[in-house]
């Protein structure tokens, strides 16, 4: 039984123009509560999303194309912590507009019902499941989540661009592209330097030409990439550890191995 609770502390975003992102409990908060209280420790992902919103509003106080963040629970234990979750959210002053208390059986449905355009999780299986049902998903890098950073770093791996979400429907491909277009537009609002968003492209296999294709495809969706790395078969690990992306857009999710 899914319950959706609106967070009255936060101004609700414009339904048409906001980019709806769902973040799992584990991606927002740390695993343990702070010292026996019912308040959870905060992870780094959400503040970064919020910073993007803040900067967008700085540029244009009437801006509607903001991140609309929903917190979603993905198992029954989490579902039962609903009051602690709401409490912690208030405590940290987080800009979460809605809570979706679902379980492992019905979270994907909730995602779809809420028109979620991107689903953030730290769990590979959850991401896969959501992807298969047509919701674009991204893995939050657990390591990066704990690193302080000024910029939200998004990593595009070539597969997501050339063949997004293999095995999913036309509609979900469309929604993935839509999301990328939104991201691109948000990025455009900032200049080359001092941007709260940073896009990186990494192509692991194939040479310069597949990288070139990826750059062009992204550009056709309106996404201008800041950094590009063409690995040509070299191991991904060392480069990824230098890049410290916060979330990776790709299909497969086998990439956080090193």
């Amino acid at each position, binding site marked *: 039984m899914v319950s959706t609770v609106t967070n009255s502390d936060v101004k609700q975003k414009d339904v048409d123009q906001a980019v709806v992102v769902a973040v799992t409990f584990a991606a927002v908060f740390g695993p343990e509560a702070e010292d026996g209280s019912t308040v959870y420790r905060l992870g780094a992902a959400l503040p970064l999303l919020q910073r993007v919103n803040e900067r967008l509003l700085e540029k244009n106080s009437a801006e509607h194309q903001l991140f609309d963040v929903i917190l979603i629970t993905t198992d029954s234990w989490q579902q039962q912590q609903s009051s602690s979750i709401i409490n912690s959210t208030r405590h940290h002053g987080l800009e979460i507009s809605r809570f979706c208390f679902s379980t492992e059986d019905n979270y994907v449905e909730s995602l779809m019902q809420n028109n979620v355009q991107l689903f953030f999780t730290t769990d590979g299986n959850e991401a896969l499941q959501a992807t298969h049902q047509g919701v674009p998903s991204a893995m939050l890098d657990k390591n990066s989540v704990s690193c302080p950073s000024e910029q939200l770093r998004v990593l595009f791996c070539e597969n997501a661009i050339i063949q997004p979400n293999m095995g999913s429907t036309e509609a979900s491909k469309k929604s993935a592209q839509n999301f990328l277009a939104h991201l691109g537009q948000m990025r455009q609002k900032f200049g*080359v330097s001092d941007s709260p968003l940073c896009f990186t*492209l990494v192509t692991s296999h194939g040479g310069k*030409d597949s990288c070139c294709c990826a750059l062009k495809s992204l550009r056709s969706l309106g996404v201008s*990439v800041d950094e590009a*790395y063409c690995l040509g078969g*070299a191991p991904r690990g060392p480069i990824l550890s230098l890049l410290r992306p916060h979330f990776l857009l790709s299909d497969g999710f086998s990439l956080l191995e090193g």
Partner: protein
Amino acid sequence: MSLDAVQVMSGQVKELKVSPSSNGDARGSWEGKEEFDPNQLELTTKPKPVTGRRARKVEGAVFFPKPENAVTVAVSSRVLFRTEREQKVFEQKGVEEYLRYQIEHENEPFAPGPAFPFVKALEVVNARLRELYPESEELFDIVLVTYNHAHVGIRLINTINHHNLFIERFCMTGGSSPIGYLKAWHTNLYLSADAEKVREALAEGIAAATMFMPEKLTEVSESQLRVAFDGDAVLFSDESECIFKTHGLDKFFEHEKENEDRLLDHGPLKGFLEVLGKLQKKFYAKGQRLDCPIRTYLVTARSAASSGIRALKTLRAWGLEIDEALFLAGAPKGPMLEKIRPHIYFDDQMFHVEGAAEMGTAAAHVPYGIAQKYNSQQKMSSGKTENSSFMTSPLTYRSSSRQIRYRPAGKLCSAYPEFTEPHMFSLPGASINRQ
């Protein structure tokens, strides 16, 4: 796509002979080809299939060697290609305008820069290595490492395709320091136009040098890679250099005589000479010593009869072979380098780098050791920020750095008669072949 089409497109190629064993290199001269007619070029972004090269392509190990097995040479976009126009745009109008300009001119390839002949020569060596050792990963791996933004990426890739370069790996760091990536790529040599980055790389133990665009680039061999090194503060440490700078030439000779049997400490480019030697041995193992496509040179102001002995003993103790050693006893290096025609020459003193560049040699400055104290005192421009540190013309260093030099050979002759002529000293097994 036929070979004829390639000929028309590049405009640089006089005759294109593609033998089955070549790595797609064109036989034509590279010098002075800065002008190109954009209307004549019909560039697509599709890969240009070059017969002969791609024919041997195989997915996996041979095509993309593992970074730790290959000899990785990282070059920046500003030394591989000529980007002066774009640099002006950046300096005068800022980064946004610069990126816009780049995107607008995306289909115009850049002209070759000072490191271009060097990179082409590396590919020739690769072709020969592949012939002899088709399964081996011990090849040169060229990586483009630039702190350009990825917006310039498409233009760079177009240019690489246009010039038929075999560069399949690159890092565009969008303004952040490339040093970490150099380490991740197990870089053996880093060439950049930015002295700051080069210094950072040297501090991390990576062989690095700054390259400058000479006014003219003399034609170099297309079948043999020639790399020339200075001795002190390049292959060796700057310990002797220090003595010379602080106590003068006499003390230097004394010190070297006393310490003849004590090995010199290693310098920043010793490692690169080592890997070149390893690749050379692969050719020797297959009976190709006389026809080896790699040749190394030591070009030093030391003199053969005295101070040079220590250098040779050190090299021998390190197990490094160098094909030719030229002891100039203070004579200018330019003319000698002009005869050798190396694809690249490494020196720690700007004076020598300039002298070489004047005569058309692609010279690279290694900002290491005590000589830098004297170089930097003469620096003309100031107020360079991180982003705008495009290098100034090497000629600005000229007038002031002339004060720091070895005594001209003429002056030495009265006190040291044996040093009137530069001493050329060839190691056994090598033939003295200037062309």
